[in-house]
């Protein structure tokens, strides 16, 4: 018999009662749509968590429904009673992790991802220490040698869409502090992110440049690390907490007005840092102060309003928002305002922009087939827009959209681009 009290605490049992089971989340849930049963719907999952917390079902019964949840949190945005599904979901993940009910293959894949790809303990500080990326062409091989059949089967597909990487010299030469040419309007710190910095280094450099042109002094503190979102979503709360503490330590809040990031998922996790710590502790307080300064690049650029775009961009664009930017941060307008500020561009909204692309952290690695079903629905929507560019605001989405383009044979017709890179293309200059 498992300890129910412990489970109840982890899954935030009291919060389960906020769900009145009205079902308004059903139309918003991608997996309810693709998996076609209540078991894979938000209210179904919440109910199952409750059943487990009340001892009516076993942790094992909960595993598959929770594992198959993207964690896109679209349900939270449409929920009329504001159920905090993010807390329930991560609590349930933790319970599953604790109870060691994950099948061996999944455990192996996760171990590989967290220990070799995102080495939580070694992923220290120095920006650009993205060793795994230098082995990108070895991802498939590494997976094969560790006998991760599922991952090895698909790793090749992901490798094909990975961008070219800058030389290590470029990383070493990166400045840790840049100043605007004219008037100093604000000082911000830039959170580089691990995947963003490793795979989309150029986008990070562009982000800093846009901030600088907008009149911001930009600091890039050493010692910052992975935000911990992936760990947290996998039920590895302890690792997530550790990473959060390192980041909180790394940023000197008194020096900066904002901590800016360009990855919707990281930004969301960092605003959730307080939840990782017990209330009324010093760390909880520090996490709150940290979280209060976290901003997405789009928010800051709109607020500073310091750019004009001089170069018309002849692109037909559609926008795939980051789920966590939309559903956790509730930032919807700012990226669109920036898009519309670009001269020459034509923007066509997706029919369902708030439907997840299926990337969802490492979901596309561990639940490849389910992820592809969701991606295919997204690509249908994209194709109907007849655009040549998909704009995203998160590295996971960006990779997934690249994968979708390849999967649907649209290379050369459609390109996936981070919002920041599009803005750079538009010849930004200080107002």
């Amino acid at each position, binding site marked *: 018999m498992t300890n129910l009290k412990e489970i109840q605490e982890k899954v935030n049992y009291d919060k389960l*009662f*906020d769900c*009145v*089971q*009205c*079902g*308004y989340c*059903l*139309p918003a849930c991608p997996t309810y749509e693709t998996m*076609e*049963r*209540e*078991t894979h*719907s938000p209210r*179904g999952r919440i*109910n*199952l968590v409750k*059943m487990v917390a009340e001892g*009516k*079902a*076993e942790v094992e*019964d*909960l595993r*598959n*429904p929770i594992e198959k949840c993207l964690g896109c949190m679209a349900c939270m945005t449409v929920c*009329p*009673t*504001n159920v905090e599904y993010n807390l329930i979901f991560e609590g349930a993940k933790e319970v599953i992790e604790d109870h060691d009910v994950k099948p061996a293959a999944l455990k192996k894949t996760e171990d590989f991802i967290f220990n070799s790809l995102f080495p939580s303990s070694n992923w220290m500080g120095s920006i650009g220490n993205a060793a795994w990326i230098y082995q990108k062409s070895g991802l498939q091989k590494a997976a094969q040698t560790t006998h991760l059949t599922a991952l090895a089967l698909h790793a090749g597909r992901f490798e094909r869409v990975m961008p070219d990487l800058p030389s290590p010299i470029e990383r070493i030469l990166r400045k840790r502090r840049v100043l605007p040419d004219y008037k100093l309007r604000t000082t911000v710190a830039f959170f580089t992110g691990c995947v963003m910095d490793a795979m989309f280094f150029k986008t990070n450099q562009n982000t800093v440049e846009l901030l600088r042109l907008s009149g911001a002094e930009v600091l890039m503190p050493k010692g910052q690390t992975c935000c911990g979102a992936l760990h947290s979503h996998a039920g590895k709360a302890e690792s997530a907490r550790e990473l959060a503490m390192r980041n909180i330590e790394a940023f000197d809040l008194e020096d900066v007005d904002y901590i800016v990031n360009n990855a919707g998922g990281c930004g969301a996790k960092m605003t959730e840092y307080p939840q990782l710590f017990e209330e009324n502790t010093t760390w909880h307080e520090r996490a709150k102060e940290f979280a209060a300064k976290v901003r997405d690049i789009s928010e800051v650029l709109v607020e500073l309003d310091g750019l004009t775009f001089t170069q018309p961009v002849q692109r037909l664009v559609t926008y795939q928002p980051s789920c966590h930017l939309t559903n956790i941060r509730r930032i919807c307008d700012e990226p669109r305002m920036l898009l519309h500020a670009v001269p020459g561009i034509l923007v066509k909204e997706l029919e369902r922009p708030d439907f997840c692309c299926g990337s969802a952290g490492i979901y596309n690695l561990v639940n490849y087939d389910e992820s592809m079903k969701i991606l295919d629905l997204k690509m249908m929507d994209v194709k109907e827009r007849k655009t040549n560019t998909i704009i995203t605001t998160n590295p996971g989405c960006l990779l997934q959209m690249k994968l979708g383009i390849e999967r649907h044979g649209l290379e050369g017709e459609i390109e996936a681009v981070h919002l920041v890179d599009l803005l750079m293309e538009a010849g930004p200059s200080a107002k």
Partner: protein
Amino acid sequence: MNSWMKKLLQVLPEKQILTDLADRYSYSFDASFGEYLPEAVVQVKNNHEVAAVLRVANVYKVPVYPRGSGTCLSGGPLPVKGGIVMDMSQWPEKIEMQPEDLIVKVSPSARTSEINKAAEAYGLMYAPDPSSAHVATIGGNLAENSGGPRGLKYGVTKDYVIGLEVVTPEGKIIKTGGQTIKNVTGYDLTKLMVGCEGTLGVITEATLKLISKPPATQTILVSFSEVRTAGKAISKTLTSGILPAKMEFLDQACIRAVENFQPAGLPIEAEAVIIIELDGHPESLKVEKELIKGIMKQIGAVDIIIPKTVEEAAGIWHARKQVSPAIAKIKPTKVSEDATVPRSRIPDMLDRLNEIKRKYNVEVVVFGHAGDGNLHPNILCDKRDQEEMLRVERAVAELFQAAIDLGGTLSGEHGIGTMKAPFMESELGAAGVDMMKRIKNSWDPNHILNTGKIFSEQGQRLVLRHD
């Protein structure tokens, strides 16, 4: 594996039969009270599958519980006796417009708002608008005869159904009605099916009537310093030659809850507000708007707000939509009732509700579609508090009695289900209920379809407490 399960496997693809505990628990609830674990869930996708499942169930006398999206507020789809939940939501959606005939043929799984959307493409409208229309299936709406705010002017689900395909509990596929507006051929089985709460048959296709979509709307927000005046204002308006599309009532507790939750600029000093929506030709709206202003002033309204822009109007209706979540912040459990009274008795009903609130020391807030007498008194409580729930049970019982005493009914639009079943006789009398039971017996001799609903068992009473 028990024998009926083996038979099911012969008539349905295996992947459409769910028996895992996780799956069964996921169909054990709806948006009302209670949780009942079925033995199996079947996901049917055409009328032959429905018929096949029902034939098996009828032979083995296994109860079957049809279910759409499970948004029911009266326990319609709850598998109270175990057995089989028949999930209709994954049936491929069909919405076949016949705009020249002003009708549409739909599958039971079609969502109500999608039907309206399809109609709007032709300048038409499917009028019934329950607040769950974007989630709920038409099958569920038909079974429960759902209403909605527009019911005041346009009527409810039953007023829009002209033909059905139904599978009987014995597994026969029949047609009722047809596709003409007028049709008096034989008994009106269509109307019998609509609102039968899935106890007589499973609806597998419906032919629905559409009407033209009014070209314009006008919202008016009126506030009152006395609840009774607000009640009177409703009858006064409706007898003045104007028929608004909606007339929604909010009491002070609701107004304040909304303003605490997500400020929308509702008048927090008002004892009650009425939100009116007029629809029709823009020119006639101008005239009706002035008439309403006059009526409200004369009757003693404190304030009349006429939004100037579409956005302002949308803001008012958004505030109305926020009532449900806002009041859920007062206490976590919401016992949502829909007792309905003749319109002239609304002020009396509001008085009775006040008495009940004091007598049982329970938190009652009132809002709803007051224009058609359909109030939604909501009792806010905490289902983990057994003592409080006992008081709530008593308050609910008295609330039902109050509605009946005032010449009203137990349920305007949510349905009887399980919770209101014990009160059927006090509204209909023993002979009235008996006639209904006879209909049930002749349609469903083995009592397999949605058994345990509408009719109460010996000694059954309202229970909101669970261990």
